[in-house]
């Protein structure tokens, strides 16, 4: 096995191992009731945000395009999930929550993916930062659209309307305009979130280490050179973007079905930026980093509740400090020295600990 392959394998194993160990530990803590209520309530959202961060990393870190509307896809997934789940329950009386959840998540992914294709086709043909602008607008458009969306179900049929009046009498409301998706039966579980994270990791990590994934990274590193090698840039940028949209839609469905309501204001531009922060903090192209930073930054605001009014201020300060520390060459070399002996265990031959990489 070559050195690069070995490095990659270890990286992937560490990523999976970390997620699996975290899951087992948390499950045991839940079993032993050793976990606070607020943290328990956070478990599914953490899973959703991890998937959001990892999928956005595929777009930003690997294909090198800036997407500022990732929460829009999440919103689509959340609403689709809520509608599908509500409809299945009302129309088919489907009591099997697992099956309902799976169908809702799949539907959320598909619908979000379709929107991803619709946005990607015109925008990814262009060079430059158009994707950032268009996805920014997309997020806002989706938020405004779901704000006036009314969906009801009656006699096994779904009724859609952007004006409440058009819905027939006697429908069970699933989405009620600005009130959002209402009366959702929360069916998301931590285990479902965990499995979805694993699926996301398999998709993203396997993709980036394959022919298609290398093509995606090549378009990021040098567009003209990639084209000269016969790599169709639009196709591979599209592949990354749509895959990310599908994953975000699935995360949205998971997230939406975790609470009794989903409101449009949950998926604002701020949320897109939040996910962007997860990705940047974890490192562009670093999947493990995304997982850790998404977890850390989702838990942090809850932990900071005791600061009350100063919560967001402290959050910002912590964020800045983390960025400074992880990017400071001196501190990096210190960390490398600290973990050098551990790292050398994985290497083929023992290597003396150098002054750290200052790249």
């Amino acid at each position: 096995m070559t050195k690069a392959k070995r490095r990659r394998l270890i990286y992937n194993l560490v990523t999976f191992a970390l997620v699996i160990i975290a899951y087992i530990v948390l499950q045991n803590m839940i079993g032993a009731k050793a976990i606070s209520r607020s943290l328990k309530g956070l478990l599914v959202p953490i899973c959703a945000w991890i998937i959001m961060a990892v999928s956005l990393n595929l777009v930003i870190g690997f294909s090198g395009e800036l997407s500022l509307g990732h929460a829009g896809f999440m919103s689509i997934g959340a609403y689709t999930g809520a509608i599908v789940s509500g409809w299945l329950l009302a129309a088919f009386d489907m009591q099997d929550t697992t099956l309902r959840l799976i169908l809702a998540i799949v539907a959320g992914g598909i619908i979000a993916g379709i929107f991803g294709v619709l946005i990607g086709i015109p925008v990814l043909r262009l060079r430059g930062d158009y994707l950032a602008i268009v996805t920014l607008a997309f997020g806002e458009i989706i938020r405004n659209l779901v704000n006036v969306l009314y969906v009801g179900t009656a006699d096994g049929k779904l009724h859609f309307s952007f004006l409440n009046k058009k819905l027939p009498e006697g429908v069970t409301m699933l989405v009620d305009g600005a009130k959002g998706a209402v009366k959702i039966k929360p069916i998301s579980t931590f285990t479902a979130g965990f499995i979805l994270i694993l699926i996301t990791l398999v998709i993203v990590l396997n993709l980036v280490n394959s022919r298609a994934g290398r093509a995606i990274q090549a378009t990021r590193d040098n567009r003209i050179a990639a084209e000269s090698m016969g790599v169709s840039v639009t196709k591979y940028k599209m592949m990354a973007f749509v895959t990310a949209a599908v994953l975000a839609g699935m995360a949205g469905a998971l997230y939406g079905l975790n609470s009794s309501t989903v409101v449009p204001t949950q998926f604002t531009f701020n949320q897109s930026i939040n996910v962007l922060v997860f990705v940047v903090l974890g490192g562009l192209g670093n999947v493990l980093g995304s997982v850790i930073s998404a977890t850390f930054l989702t838990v942090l605001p809850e932990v900071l509740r005791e600061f009350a009014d100063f919560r967001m201020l402290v959050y910002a300060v912590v964020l800045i400090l983390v960025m400074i520390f992880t990017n400071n060459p001196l501190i990096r070399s210190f960390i490398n020295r600290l973990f050098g002996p551990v790292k050398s265990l994985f290497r083929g031959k023992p290597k003396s600990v150098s002054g750290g990489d200052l790249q």
Partner: protein
Amino acid sequence: MTEAKKRRSDTRMVPVPSHSIVPERDVDDIPVLETRHLGIEFGGLKAVDDFNLTIGKTEIAGLIGPNGAGKTTVFNLLTKVYEPTTGAVLINGQDLHGMSIVQASRLGIARTFQNIRLFDKMTVEENVRIGLHNQIKYDMITGILRLPRYWKQEKRQHERAMELLDIFGMQDLADEVSGSLPYGAQRRLEIVRALATEPKLLLLDEPAAGMNPHETEELMENIAKIRDRFGIAILLIEHDMSLVMGVCEGICVLNFGRIIAKGTADEIQANPDVIEAYLGKKKEG
């Protein structure tokens, strides 16, 4: 003689039948590269004008000229980075009109870049594997699900990449991040990457730039070796005259976007127009 044949005989640099070591190029009627009145304007400025050139199979040709003569622009026209304002480019007799860079690449044209354009965050081997993108394929789903085909094709890619890296003895560098390689190695990697696309015509933009005389000499041998081994035609831009005169069978001199001379090394060296373009006009009296 048909009209097309006559035109080709006018634009050829090496006389037909040439006395080259590879006689097959004369047997074949269709040249690897043919340009007809190729030209491009940038806002009224004719960067390249009436550029006619024919390159036969397995021919090594040089494109030289003073700075700003339009050499790299010619490369960009040939590879469809620019769409020409006038004229046509034919690869193996096929017109590139309206094609994208990707389509041109699939027709068998590969290049290196003057300002190195490696995928610098990827490893050396991965760079070569991008060159193999259209040679050894499998789809996205196969890659994600790691189906048997994935392992088979990955193995083939790896073996082929190693084989290609061996040309320049770069196998040991396979796992290095390409952006961290020394300059000369980056240039060589670009050539390997271009060769991986299995081109019929290889365009080298200043392959010896930044190399020391020893490296240049080695490169010269390798260019001839590559031609013999892969049976491809090579067109190169270079300022190092020892390399150009040493390896190129035909040379084309460009000045202010126009061809001022064409021929073999000896002819070019004796051409007064070329001397003037490089050294300036001799004062009268």
